[in-house]
């Protein structure tokens, strides 16, 4: 024979378990890393290199800007995506 107290305890336990299960299901999944695209520029005269943000329409081998060191033309050497670091966020 089951008394009322046991029944209440059973129902309460079941409810708690359900809540825990739902929480586990909807718990935030690990966030995907965010990427930002950079381009590597190289001076054709003095080989000075610098990295800057990618701009739409840029492509590898394109002459982009003047070298800050010698004034020569800078060529896009590479374009790649790097993981956004936390410093970027702050």
């Amino acid at each position: 024979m089951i008394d009322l107290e046991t029944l209440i305890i059973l129902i309460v336990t079941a409810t708690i378990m359900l809540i825990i299960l739902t929480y586990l299901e909807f718990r935030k999944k690990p966030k995907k890393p965010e990427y930002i695209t950079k381009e590597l520029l190289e001076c054709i005269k003095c080989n000075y290199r610098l990295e800057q943000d990618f701009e739409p329409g840029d492509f590898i081998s394109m002459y982009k800007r003047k070298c800050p060191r010698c004034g020569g033309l800078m060529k896009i050497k590479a374009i790649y995506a790097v993981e956004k670091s936390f410093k970027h966020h702050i």
Partner: protein
Amino acid sequence: MDNIDWPTLIFQMIWIFLLILLFTGGNQKIQMKLWSIDIRNKLKIIRKYLEDDQRKIENYMRNLGMDAPSILVKRIINYFTIEPVDIEPTDIIKRMDHLIQTSERTIKKIIADQLPDVGVYERSLVETGLAIISVINSIYKVVLHYLLTSEKEHNWVLLMQLQLIMPQILRLVETYHESLDPFLHGKPIGDTAGAYVAYRLVEEGEIISHKIVEDTSIFEVRLDDRRIYVIKAKGPGSNVGRPGIVLAQLVEELKGNVDLVITVDAALKLEGEKRGEIAEGVGAAIGDPGPEKIAIERATTKYGIPLKALVIKMGLDDAINAMKKEIYEACERTYEYVRKLIKEMTKPSSTVIVAGIGNTIGVP
């Protein structure tokens, strides 16, 4: 009956109710409802991606000077190509090639007619953008079809299977959804690896001649005292070219006087393999439906030319999203590897063909 034990009675009732559900299949109905809600929620996300991407590409086309891009989008995303008959395999490659070419040419022409004053580069970005939306659209339609069919037929096995693979489908759609950005901005993607390695050979060597056949660049380059023909899609737009057909033509032009053929491509990694791993092997590293690959195999077999393959491993999300730095570094290593391989396998003043396979977006 003056002291009824109510709690026990309620407990017994619950058990009987559960038993009835179990024997009549009622529990399955509840389960089906839950599955179907879950699938519908995920479908809503796919629908949102589809609408977002459609809006993005329509804005892009409007900026290029088009009045009503939505009509074109509708026409292209429902465009289909019927696979050739395969129970009669005679000349199936020829038929397949014909269908693929017709389909590609038609889409290119439709877009060119609508955007007459726009350069090849921007047009290629629109073409690929529309192809991405078309993939998402067909995934959406197929999932919706199976959901509605299983509900209509009360097919809980079908519904369960659909619910189980939904997370995987959603991830696939997310990958395509995210790849629209690099394509609309002209960023190199992971699949560009092969084309980039080919470009590095051209950059480093002394160019003797350069011609373009069928949207594919052929560079004749002198490097490490060898004559190297570099084949890659013509850049920097979104383009894969026809490297196989062009390679076969080149081998014929050289009358088979080729000492080595190397194909370089991005390859899908197995789960657990590292991104950017390089692997060397034999065969044609190219992932087309068949015509390009068989052309390379036939040409090299005809003249007994060694056919080597170098692949850079990556996941699908890496392959169609902006090229990650690890893959860029792997490309540089692969470039060194190609040079080492050529020196190892051929004598000075030999002729070598290197084909960089893949979409050349962002690489000239």
